[in-house]
């Protein structure tokens, strides 16, 4: 198989992830409060930043630019590791300072923990 066609198909996949990122960003405008916007942020970071970096690193490996490929793979791995963690810490601090009100609230684990301890 010719490697140029593979690279072309992979770069079409990057367009797909760009559209996913745009949909996630539109979620920032559509959703009503902070806790719902966390969902949009997840769509934007994992679908719109983790996957394209993976695809781009594969493109770089096919084109024999190994240094770029390794560093993009590393940054994709770091996004996968760090983005949910940072969002978790941010959401917890926001809840405990009562900055935003959780609107459709089903259960409240943090309040139960604070009451028990």
């Amino acid at each position, binding site marked *: 198989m010719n490697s140029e066609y593979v690279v072309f198909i992979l770069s079409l996949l990057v367009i797909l992830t760009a559209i996913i990122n745009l949909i996630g960003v539109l979620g920032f405008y559509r959703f009503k409060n902070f806790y719902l916007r966390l969902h949009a942020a997840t769509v934007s970071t994992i679908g719109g930043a983790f996957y394209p970096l993976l695809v781009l690193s594969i493109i770089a490996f096919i084109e024999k630019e190994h240094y*770029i490929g390794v560093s993009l793979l590393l940054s994709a791995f770091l996004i996968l590791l760090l983005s949910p963690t940072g969002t978790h810490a941010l959401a917890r601090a926001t809840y405990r300072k009562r900055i935003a009100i959780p609107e459709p609230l089903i259960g409240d684990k943090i309040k139960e923990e604070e009451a028990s301890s």
Partner: protein
Amino acid sequence: MTIPLVISLFIYTVSVLLLTYIVVRGPTVSDKVLSADVALYTSSVILAITGIIIGSEAMAICTIILVLWAYALDLYFSKYLERGELGEQ
């Protein structure tokens, strides 16, 4: 290879501009930090695409730096919200 990457570069730029509006306006301060976070991750992808197109290694390194500083921003802000200061426990 180049033309689809340039198209996706435009789409990513549009989403960073939309996020910048949220960073300036955003209803609460947590929304501002969250959208700045997503904007940093998205601009790291923009840097990666540009680095692939022109074949530059320095831009590929800068993606790692942007991701790390976005995480540091998150943790710093949540610590500031909870404790009001950086060095306290």
